[in-house]
């Protein structure tokens, strides 16, 4: 687009493609294109910045409002980390343990993926890096039992935070989703009001399936926030806009690498600017 270019179909096409490329999905891309057309059609605009500015405004309006994280009246605060296979849950839990450790909070980690090869060892290494205590069990143990033991330990040690890492699971596998519901139930029994945060970890490269993931996971363990990982690549994570709009779930954090401090607090303006970069 160049300065003084009219807002015509060609420009609107270009913008719609940019939105598609950012994984906003065809429905939302078409809707935003129409909105933009309604607001600006026929006008000669001052330049591409003006059109992009209006588009950014429109997208920002679709995101859920910033809501503070749940803080229980008594510690520990419990955060349950869930999501499909390979999305970055264990790494994200490790980064959160590091972040809270840096803030001087006492962290307990539940290595409740008792299924996958070396999952407990992977979580334990991360916990060790930040000085968090890890609660673990035997391979094949009941993950709900690990979560229960960790909740007990977190209370006994007067921990500020309990992080529960779970196994990756595809949402179309009922037994696995039932297992997750049980983990959440068992945590709630031991610590009333818990889990206070349930973070759905989404691989930033995921397409439309992310919306289905959000719908299905929130059915068994009400998701309070999203983590978009691997945004240090070329994916933009536009799926979060559709999820925010349909389910009202906000993004809490963004993963931008594999090291402990590669976790950013979600900033809506920056995220939207990134979608259109």
């Amino acid at each position: 687009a160049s300065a003084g270019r009219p807002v015509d179909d060609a420009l609107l096409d270009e913008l719609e493609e940019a939105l598609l490329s950012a994984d906003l999905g065809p429905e939302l891309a078409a809707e935003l294109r129409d909105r933009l057309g309604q607001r600006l059609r026929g006008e000669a605009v001052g330049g591409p910045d003006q059109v992009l500015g209006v588009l950014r405004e429109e997208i920002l309006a679709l995101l859920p409002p910033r809501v503070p994280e749940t803080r229980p009246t008594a510690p520990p605060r419990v955060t349950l980390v869930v999501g499909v296979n390979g999305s970055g849950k264990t790494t994200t839990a490790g980064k959160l343990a590091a972040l809270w450790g840096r803030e001087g909070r006492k962290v307990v980690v539940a290595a409740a993926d008792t299924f996958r090869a070396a999952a407990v060892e992977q979580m334990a290494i991360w916990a060790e890096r930040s000085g968090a205590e890890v609660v673990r069990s035997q391979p094949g143990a009941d993950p709900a039992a690990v979560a229960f033991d960790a909740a007990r330990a977190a209370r006994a040690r007067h921990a500020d935070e309990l992080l529960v890492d779970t196994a990756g699971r595809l949402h179309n596998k009922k037994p696995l989703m039932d297992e997750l519901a049980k983990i959440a139930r068992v945590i709630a029994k031991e610590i009333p009001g818990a889990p206070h945060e349930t973070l759905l970890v989404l691989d930033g490269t995921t397409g439309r399936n992310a919306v289905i993931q959000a719908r299905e996971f929130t059915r068994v363990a009400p998701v309070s926030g999203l983590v978009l990982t691997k945004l240090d690549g070329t994916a933009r994570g536009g799926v979060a806009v559709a999820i925010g709009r349909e389910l009202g779930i906000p993004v809490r954090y963004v993963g931008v690498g594999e090291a402990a401090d590669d976790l950013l607090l979600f900033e809506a303006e920056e995220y939207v600017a990134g979608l259109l970069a």
Partner: protein
Amino acid sequence: MDAALREIRLALLEADVSFKVVRDFLARVREKALGADVIQSLTPGQQVIRVVRDELVGLLGGGAATRPLAISSRPPSVYMLCGLQGSGKTTTIGKLGRWLKKSGRHPLVAPVDLQRPAAVLQAVQVARGAGLAVYEHDGTGSPVERAREAVRHARQKGFDVVLLDTAGRLHVDEELMDELAALRAAVEPAEILYVADAMTGQDAVRSAEAFKARVPLTGVILTKLDGDARGGAALSVAAITGVPVRFAGIGEKPEAIEVFDPERMAGRILG
């Protein structure tokens, strides 16, 4: 005809096919449908569907998936798995190894991800779980050194395949992409298999193209097809890179792999 094409466009975009691939694909379909022999019993819309199906199957590799895994003139044949973080490489190594063993080969798993916490341990456990031999080491040194060592070990002990499990990496990470090229130069793989997650969206083409620019990919393995993602990434990658999808990952256990079926995939993408 246009109504049918619009519907197909929406279906393909909802299935995560790259929007550029959708555009070119529909243009070709339109051309073919207009030029096709008119079948009296089909409406223009039905004609379009028929052409779409045939085109999809053709692009998804036609019969290329059934081509057997290559065998090097000098054993062992090295099969190098690569791809983005978390796509399923380590798990797939166990599946491929078991599949090869069942067909009479003697594979050795070589874990060369030295950066992810407990990655070597995971590969060792996956290999053991699948009844496979694995080249164990302490996870130090460099991936290139360990890869060379594993190949030497395989040659000495009479293994005819080495399955190289590499670290997940971003296509925009220059250092790690250089390392991948160095690995390839060091062990001259007979197959370089790009492992991609079936739920990948528009980014699928960007990453696959970038990997192909650095190492000559000989195949794609699409994982997590036991989920409900439509898997349009398969079409995007095949159409843009010309690299055929060889295998489909359909679960977490070592048995959960099958030869890629383009007919079934075409149906799945169209929803």
